[in-house]
């Protein structure tokens, strides 16, 4: 009789289970959900917007140091959903890789190339026992010279896809359902529509209205392809526009 469950180690390191699954990778996905926040990204006609909850667990914490939105280069942004410590490692490595790319090849690292690099690194963690997968889902945004606005999502399994809209975190499935309805007919959103779709989708998912300092919003626009985090005033304007619209 064959040894069924890998000696019980299939839950501890990334080896196959009898059903051909990788439990450590599945647990990494659960760690992303356990962080308790939901993120949403939307790609418009000439801009990309990502939005995430900003939960400050303690009033004594310095709010400005709590963030999940990271610039990788001037033109590329990364929204990390999941374990904050793993997110910082990922961001550090991504920043290093993007800077080396720019130095080596003389042009800015494109969005899909960075996404592929992150995904390939994540795949290594799923195949080698000495490192566990990171508990982070990364959404990368930027404007590509040839393809225009791009939004990519990379997960702990090493998958990466380009998205018209994406979600991650504890309520990602509900968010996807809402976004599928909104984007069913391939709409070409303007910048304002893109931002408001993202924010209002997050509001519907969490069923609460936000104040400007409870969410973080990051954008890139074709007319100004720099990755930018919106200030609380700008977020307020969009929130007002949404509530007036409804």
């Amino acid at each position, binding site marked *: 009789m064959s040894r069924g469950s890998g000696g019980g180690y299939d839950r501890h390191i990334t080896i196959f289970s009898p059903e*051909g699954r990788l439990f450590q990778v599945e647990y990494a996905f659960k760690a992303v959900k356990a962080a308790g926040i939901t993120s949403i990204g939307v790609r418009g006609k000439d801009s990309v917007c990502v939005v995430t909850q900003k939960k400050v667990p303690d009033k004594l914490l310095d709010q400005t140091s709590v963030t999940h939105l990271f610039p990788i280069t001037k033109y590329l942004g990364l929204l990390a959903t999941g374990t904050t410590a793993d997110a910082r490692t990922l961001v550090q490595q991504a920043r290093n890789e993007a800077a080396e790319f720019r130095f080596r090849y003389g042009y800015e690292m494109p969005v899909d190339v960075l996404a592929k690099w992150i995904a390939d690194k994540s795949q290594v963690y799923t195949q080698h026992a000495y490192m566990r997968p990171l508990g982070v889902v990364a959404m990368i945004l930027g404007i590509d010279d040839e393809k225009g606005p791009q939004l990519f999502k990379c997960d702990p399994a090493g998958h990466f896809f*380009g998205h018209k809209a994406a979600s991650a975190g504890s309520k990602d499935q509900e968010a996807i359902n809402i976004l599928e309805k909104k984007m069913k007919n391939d709409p070409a959103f303007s910048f304002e529509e893109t931002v408001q779709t993202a924010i209002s989708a997050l509001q519907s998912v969490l069923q609460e209205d936000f104040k400007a300092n409870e969410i973080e919003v990051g954008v890139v626009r074709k007319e100004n392809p720099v990755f930018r985090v919106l200030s609380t005033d700008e977020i307020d304007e969009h929130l007002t526009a949404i509530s007036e619209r409804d």
Partner: protein
Amino acid sequence: MGDSQYSFSLTTFSPSGKLVQIEHALTAVASGQTSLGIKAANGVVIATEKKLPSILVDETSVQKIQILTPNIGVVYSGMGPDFRVLVRKSRKQAEQYHRLYKEPIPVTQLVRETAAVMQEFTQSGGVRPFGVSLLVAGFDDKGPQLYQVDPSGSYFSWKASAMGKNVSNAKTFLEKRYTDDMELDDAVHTAILTLKEGFEGQISGKNIEIGIIGTDRKFRVLTPAEIKDFLDEVE
């Protein structure tokens, strides 16, 4: 290769003499999306389902069929991230061969080297086998060729083969329809019909991928428009 702390293999023999990690890897392949390949008299066709997790995924950002050299293409069933690693390694090996011999690498050699990589990961320390089976399609001086490589690193040449979820139905279908003197266009039609057999939902140019190589020895992936033309012919 091997990872320092894990200088022992994770794939070890069971009392009955089986390598269970490889069996589990094959289970992972068998639960992947269906893919198939057919060798015609004047070329090879490979095809796969391309089911994406949501309509929000941009299908142009995903390509499951990849080119290894101008005259060799490959498709997989199983875990996408593992496939990317093998594609990268194979492309490098093909380039290294070319640098040494100033000749494009023969299909059998590339298959052998890729299979050797897959075998390494079943024996080295601290790593697990690849969760993919590959179908390699190529055209070189020996003519059109189709090879299947499994997670164990074993490979065979096939006239027609299928892998993934619908493998048994697909293979039965192929056995009935295959003829040795098939032309490439007939093979494409047969490939589409085989995929259609087990397809859930409406088949279209956007949820399958087809790659072909003919006597011109240039492997290429068909555009959704070309697939649509073939689909209309099949109707």
